[in-house]
Structures are given as C-alpha cells and as structure tokens.
C-alpha cells in the first residue's frame, strides 16, 4: 500500500465529520467543501513527513477552518498571500482540539450534513448523487460511472441539486429529540435508496453495483456509531448487511439473476450474515419495532436457513403481517403473498394478489410473482400473459432474461 493510498483511506474516513463540522462553522456548503479540499491537499504534503495525526478529522477541521478564514481575509482585504507557516501547526494544537471536538455535538453535525442532501424536492437519484459527492467524497466521474450516465450529465445534476440545497433553510442549532428523529428517518431512507440503487440497478446493464452497496453500509455504520441506541438504524444496517451478503450468489456467470431458492448458499458472505444477525437481535431488544428491523428480521430468517427447504416461511409470513401494520404498502403485501404461497399454497397467495392489481399495475415484480403462482397452479396461458407483462416492465436485461427463462419453462 502506497502512502497516498493510506492517506486516501484516512481522508475518506474523516470526510463526513470534517465537512460536517466545517459546514456548521461556515454555514455554507461550498466554503466547507473547499476548506476540506484545501486541508486534504495540505494533509497530502504534511502527513507523509510528520506521520498520520492521531485524530485525522480534528486535524482536517482545524487546518480547513484556518485556511478558509485566511482565504476570506485575503478576498476581503486584497491582502498579500500569507505564508504557509503563518498557519498554526495543527499537530501541536491537536490535543486541545480533540477535547473540544469530543464535547461538541459532532454526531448532530454529521446527521445535518446527510440531512441537507435529502432535499424533498429533488428526485431520489439526485439526493443520492449529491450525498455521494459531498459526504462520501466520490468524484463526479466515479458517481457518473456508478449511475451509468455521462460525466457531463452527472456534473449538471449535482450542480442543480447543490443549488436547491443552498436555497433551502437548514437549522444549525442542535436539533431537539423530535427533529433529530425526523432527520434520522429521512437520512435512513436516503441511505437505503443508495443501497437499492446498487442492489437492483434501476436501468442500465449492471444489475449489482457493489461499490454503491458498500458505501451505503459504510454510511449506515457511521450513523450507528454516532447514534448507538437507534434501533431502526441497527435494523437498516442489518438489512443491508444481510442482503449484501448474498451478492456473490445473486448472478450466475452470464449475469442472469439467480433466485434465492436456487442460490449456492456457500457463496453467501457468512461474516456479513453473522454481523447482521447480531444487529437484528440487538435491535429487537429495544422493544421499539420499525420497518427496517422487520425487513432485517425477514432477511435473517432466510440467512439462518442452511438449505432453501429449511426456511421458516411461517415466521416470515408472521413478520410480514407486523410489517403490513407498521408500513402498509402493496409491495409489502406482494412479498407476504410469496410467503403465504409457501405456507398455504399458491391459490391463497393468488387471492391476496387480487387487491394489488391496480396499485401495482406498473410493477415488474407483481407480474413476475403472479406469473409464477399461475404457473404453479397449472394455468399456463394466464401465466404467459403475466410473464409477458413483466418483461415489458423489466428495468434491466437481467430482470427480463429471468422472466424469459420462466416463459421458456412454460413452453416445455
């Protein structure tokens, strides 16, 4: 590992906290980002010589703040450039600084930074893109590649999103408990959108984009370290860990989707599963159930089954019944129908689908499930109609290919 590479990891790790603190200080995202950028450049010069600081985030906040203040003075007074050595040596001041950082509410800083990316007027993909740029520090080129769009198009999207963010009023006071809870909910939703963007790409060729999933997990862990008692953040982290654990088994060598029942479970990442299972149990202890915890609990039932036939579908059905109350949605009912088909048979499941026909008329998975149930009931002609409707709604070639495979099976 080269020096630049370890500094890169340190900068990536420190970035959310440092940019968040600089944002609180300057109350301007552009200034905060520039200050962090400048501090990073100085780190690249200073750290190889002096070694890594004990608290890189504190170092970057300190140096970033001073350099931005100098920049402002320079602009205001048209002064001559101050020498580099005018800036106080951060190393020497670090101890005092760390003390101040510990006592400050920096977890609210990071939450605020994530929250400002979640502008409700912006489409979800723009919220994610701007969070990847600002919080994660991915380059526009990297984000464009992850979303499979041109760099110019992505740059334009991010600029537009940032303008919307600059115009919105963000409270810089320490949030009260209610506001903090609201922010956490909004931010959790954005992180899960980011994960889903990587897990089931909404368009384009790639079906599983691992870096986006891993970045989502990294952000969730960061949030959970800052808010260790938030059971829904535990649930969200667990859910993503348990889903991501199956990534290596989800596509075959040709890039076709492999359904969970057909996956080689030895390819599942059992380290991630172990961590996910603990977080599910930890969240359950809180006694405050929530949608992410319930979805994680369902994923944990799958994860515990050594073979597909070991899956406790009755338990999954039961958890879905709780989720239907916590978060009523036709998609939840559709998923429950799959569990019901395993416990009570395809006819009972198909009956559940009747009420979903209208709300899910444009939903790929609805027709995929419907086709599969009809197939199981031996109603091949109706199954074919449903599968064809699914293909028309497929968002990726892998989704379409999977349904075509089902159609081929119908024909034999």
């Amino acid at each position, binding site marked *: 590992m080269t020096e630049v590479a370890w500094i890169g990891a340190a900068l990536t*790790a420190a970035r959310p906290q440092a940019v968040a603190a600089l944002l609180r200080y300057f109350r301007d995202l552009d200034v905060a980002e520039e200050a962090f950028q400048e501090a990073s450049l100085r780190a690249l010069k200073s750290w190889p010589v002096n070694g890594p600081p004990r608290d890189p985030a504190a170092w970057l906040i300190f140096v970033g703040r001073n350099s931005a203040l100098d920049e402002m003075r320079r602009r205001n007074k048209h002064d001559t450039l101050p020498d580099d050595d005018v800036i106080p040596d951060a190393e020497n001041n670090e101890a005092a600084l760390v003390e101040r950082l510990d006592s400050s509410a920096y977890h609210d800083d990071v939450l605020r930074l994530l929250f400002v990316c979640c502008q409700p007027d912006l489409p979800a993909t723009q919220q994610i893109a701007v969070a990847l740029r600002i919080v994660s520090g991915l380059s526009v080129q990297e984000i464009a590649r992850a979303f499979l769009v041109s760099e110019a198009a992505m740059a334009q999207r991010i600029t537009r999103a940032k303008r919307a963010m600059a115009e919105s009023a963000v409270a810089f006071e320490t949030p009260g408990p209610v506001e903090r809870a609201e922010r956490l909910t909004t931010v959790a939703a954005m992180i899960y959108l980011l994960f889903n963007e990587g897990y089931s790409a909404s368009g384009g060729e790639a079906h599983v984009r691992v870096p986006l999933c891993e970045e989502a997990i990294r952000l969730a862990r960061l949030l959970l370290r800052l808010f*260790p008692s938030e059971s829904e953040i535990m649930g969200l982290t667990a859910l993503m860990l348990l889903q991501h654990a199956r990534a290596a088994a989800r596509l075959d060598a040709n890039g076709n989707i492999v359904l969970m029942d057909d996956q080689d479970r030895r390819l599942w990442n059992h380290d991630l599963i172990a961590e996910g299972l603990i977080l599910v149990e930890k969240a359950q202890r809180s006694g405050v159930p929530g949608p992410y915890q319930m979805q994680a609990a369902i994923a944990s039932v799958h994860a515990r089954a050594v073979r597909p036939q070991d899956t406790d579908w009755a338990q999954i059905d039961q958890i879905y019944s709780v989720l239907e109350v916590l978060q009523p949605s036709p998609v939840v009912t559709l998923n429950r129908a799959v569990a019901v088909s395993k416990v009570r048979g395809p006819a009972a499941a198909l009956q559940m689908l009747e009420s979903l026909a209208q709300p899910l008329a444009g939903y790929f998975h609805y027709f995929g499930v419907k086709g599969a149930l009809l197939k199981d009931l031996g109603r091949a002609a109706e199954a074919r109609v449903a599968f064809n409707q699914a293909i028309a709604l497929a968002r990726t070639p892998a989704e379409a290919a999977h349904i075509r495979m089902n159609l081929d099976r119908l024909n034999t």
Partner: protein
Amino acid sequence: MFYCILCYNLESEIDAWTREKWAAVLAKRETVTHKLAAEGRLGPVGRLMPTTTAMTVRASREALVLDGPFAETKEQLLGFYLVDCKSLQDALAVARDLVGDTGALEVRPLATFYPGIGLQSPLGTSPLPRFQ
C-alpha cells in the same frame, strides 16, 4: 509470561480500507503470527466485530445494559473473558452474572478466531491478585 497485545485503530478508517489494504495488513500480520506459532508461542487470536455490534453491561444497583461499546475513558481495561454463547442475549446474561459492584463489561462478538497452539500457562489461576 503471557502478554496480551490489544489492537486499536480508527474504525471509520478501517471501513474505508480497500481490499488491497486489507490484504496487505493481514499478510504482514501473518508473517509474524506464523513465526510465533512455529515457535510454540502463539495463543488465541481474534478480530472483534465492529463496535456497532457491541453492548455494555454497567454495574449499578441493577446491572444496566446499554447499546454501544464501552465508551468511558475514566476506567482502564483490566482483563477479558472468551465465552461461547448461543446468542447476544445469552452473552449478556453471562456478563450480568459476571459484573461486580463497579465497572463495566463490554460484550462484543468475535468476527474471526484462531485458537493458537494451546499454550501451557506459566501463571497462577487464582482470580485474586497474588499479594492477597
């Protein structure tokens, strides 16, 4: 004499490590541990799961179970137990049994475990300090 070597680092930074960095770190450690094992000197080695999985049982009138790792800096690390538990609940029950009138026990699952070569203890087994 047995020595416990405890690993500390910034977890946020570990989270940002690339696969190459992980491979490099583990390769370096393995050259050392292989040598120690060959010399018959290596005891159990474990990597802990992230602190996000941790809980803390703090001594109180009734033992308090808290989310998150042990976070205070006033107390010092004095020892550890390695226990095979069926679940987090099971592990917390053990910690509740163990916890004294003061102090805290952090309960954290292991991510990886290597049992070592089965060292013969040169130490006493009394839980009390020797001068008593």
